[in-house]
């Protein structure tokens, strides 16, 4: 059996979701007016499973993650929606409760490990911090926990390396440190925001393998935020495709990629130079995503969509069921096959 098939059969797709996001809407206040960065986005993540949020720059995928972990800039607000994790709504609980949940229930791994780590403290101190704050461990106990953790994520000679500073590590090792810090308190949900985008491909493969192992070991739900279709195909079980702040298609990765039900998903898949030989014309999506200040009425994708007609300009399609476990926001999903 291939690794992919094994992963799917071992999974209970009907298991109760551990994180349920419903109707998340985020507005950003700018000088030129309010713009909607995330609009009515819903998804759920289950233990032991990877859910991918897939989209191009500006589609709202990182803003979704930032809203979930409560790190939105002051100019951005969650104006609607809920996110249920461990029986509480992340957007309505108080600050104290959120702090308590940070790391123990919900953790995040950022893209740029060098800016996510504090350059002035040794990595041992930084890795020990979650244990000191949440478990009230002594400095010595916390440091020994940190060493264990560094060994677990594959950092050689952790006893000596814990006294090094972040800049003394390579990019891949720094990402391992961030992952170690994120899983330190055994969270239920791990959000990985473009965790390997800054890394070389052989190192990316190592980091993704580590994340996969930890997901199984800790039975975490992983929310993988990425623009890389191939990474989604290999790492994720389910995917939510985002465009201009909206989630436009969701479903199991294998099915969505084999038979997309939204013209944007199809367009993205067509743009990958996968089997295209030298000199073949690549299919591309004409135009660019809409300005978030001026999202059109009707469908967000209408300006670039080859299927667009009158109804698309007037009515925004809802994210409706297009089959078991699958949803798409398109008026003409049955025609996508022709795109």
């Amino acid at each position, binding site marked *: 059996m291939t690794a*992919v098939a094994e992963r799917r059969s071992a999974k209970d797709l009907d298991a109760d979701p551990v994180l349920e996001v419903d109707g998340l809407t985020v507005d950003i206040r700018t000088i030129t007016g309010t713009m909607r960065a995330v609009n009515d986005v819903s998804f759920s993540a289950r233990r032991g499973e990877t859910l991918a949020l897939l989209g*191009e720059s500006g589609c709202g995928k990182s803003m979704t993650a930032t809203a979930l972990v409560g790190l939105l800039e002051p100019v951005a607000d969650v104006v609607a929606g809920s996110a249920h994790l461990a029986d509480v709504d992340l957007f309505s609980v108080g600050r104290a409760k959120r702090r308590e949940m940070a790391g123990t229930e919900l953790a995040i791994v950022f893209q740029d490990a060098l800016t996510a780590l504090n350059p002035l403290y040794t990595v041992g101190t930084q890795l020990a911090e979650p244990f000191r704050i949440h478990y009230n461990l002594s400095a010595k106990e916390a440091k020994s926990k940190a060493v264990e953790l560094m060994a677990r994520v594959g950092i050689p000679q952790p006893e000596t390396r814990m006294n090094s500073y972040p800049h003394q590590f390579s990019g891949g090792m720094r990402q391992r440190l961030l992952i170690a810090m994120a899983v330190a308190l055994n969270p239920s949900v791990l959000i990985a925001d473009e965790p390997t985008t800054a890394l*070389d*491909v052989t190192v*990316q*493969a190592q980091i993704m393998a580590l994340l996969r192992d930890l997901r199984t070991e800790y039975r975490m739900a992983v929310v993988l935020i990425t623009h890389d279709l191939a990474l989604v*195909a290999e790492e994720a079980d389910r995917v939510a495709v985002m465009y201009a702040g909206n989630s436009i298609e969701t479903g199991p990765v294998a099915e969505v990629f084999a038979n997309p039900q939204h013209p944007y998903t199809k367009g993205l898949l067509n743009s990958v130079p996968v089997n295209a030989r030298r000199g073949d014309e690549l299919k*591309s999506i004409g135009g660019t995503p809409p300005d978030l200040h001026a999202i059109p009425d009707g469908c967000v994708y209408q300006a670039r969509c080859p299927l667009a007609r009158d109804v698309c300009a007037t009515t925004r399609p809802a994210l409706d069921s297009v089959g078991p476990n699958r949803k798409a926001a398109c008026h003409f999903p049955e025609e996508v096959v022709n795109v």
Partner: protein
Amino acid sequence: MSEKLLEVRDLRKSFQVPGKKKLCALDGISLDLGRGETLGLVGESGCGKSTLARTLLMLERPDSGTVRFDGIDPFSLRGKELLAFRRRVQMVFQDPYASLNARMSAGDIIAEPWRSHKSLYKSRRDRDMRVRGLLDLVGLGAKAADKYPQEFSGGQRQRIGIARALALDPDVIICDEPVSALDLSVQAQVLNLLNDLQGQLGISYVFISHDLSVVRHVADRVAVMYLGRIIENGPTEAVFERPNHPYTAALMSAAPTLDGAQRKERILLKGEVPSPLNPPSGCRFRTRCWKATEVCATTTPPSAVDPEIAGHTAECHHPLLQEGSALVPA
């Protein structure tokens, strides 16, 4: 190969770094580029891709080795001849946001190279005509000339960068990660444009990229670099389908593909690229290689030729193809 345009032999370049150490960025690079051909250059960060590009652009002077461009050694030229030569190799940069001056209009940006190369398009009228022609050529339309970079999207900016590179009618354009800053849907547009331009103008490209699927699409031949050396070189399909160097095989297998289920066994390399300040003895790759033996530590591997495909070489003591199908680490 088509008519040979560029011939590089045993190029070496090292940099002095604080502490009296030498960083050997290029350690004996040899490659050829034909007219109208695209050479893909792949490798991980720090392998010397950009130093090689800078040397080909004559922004760095090599310590040793030869470069022959149409039979001429560009590093021997002076004065007017040198200026005329510089026209022939141009560059498209990675970051379309940082590589365009925000205070100049698109038209001025494209016309700027002519301020150094005064013999081209002498009259104002000729220059304006040519700018409009170039903007049409890259699919932006003549009206774009008066707009400023911030009025364009990333993909459109990259088109301006390409038009600027074309302004001097070069023979070779060095594209350093030209689409890695662009979104996927826009990336395809720019790759199509580069392909069309090559068909129309017969330009050669040196195409540097870390994205193997992009390289496979654009390149006629591929050179794989590791710590300052080209460790495998050959026709694109041969290198992708029959990698002969363990590093190439590992690199190919590490890149995720859409067809995840059908992939070959993944080769997960240990560790990361060693520091070029202190490269391993013998074969540079031996510290991460699952086939390494004693000889790899003592002797720099010779270039092994794939008997079935002309021009497909790999520097390895234990090339994969000659040892059956042992593509997977033991």
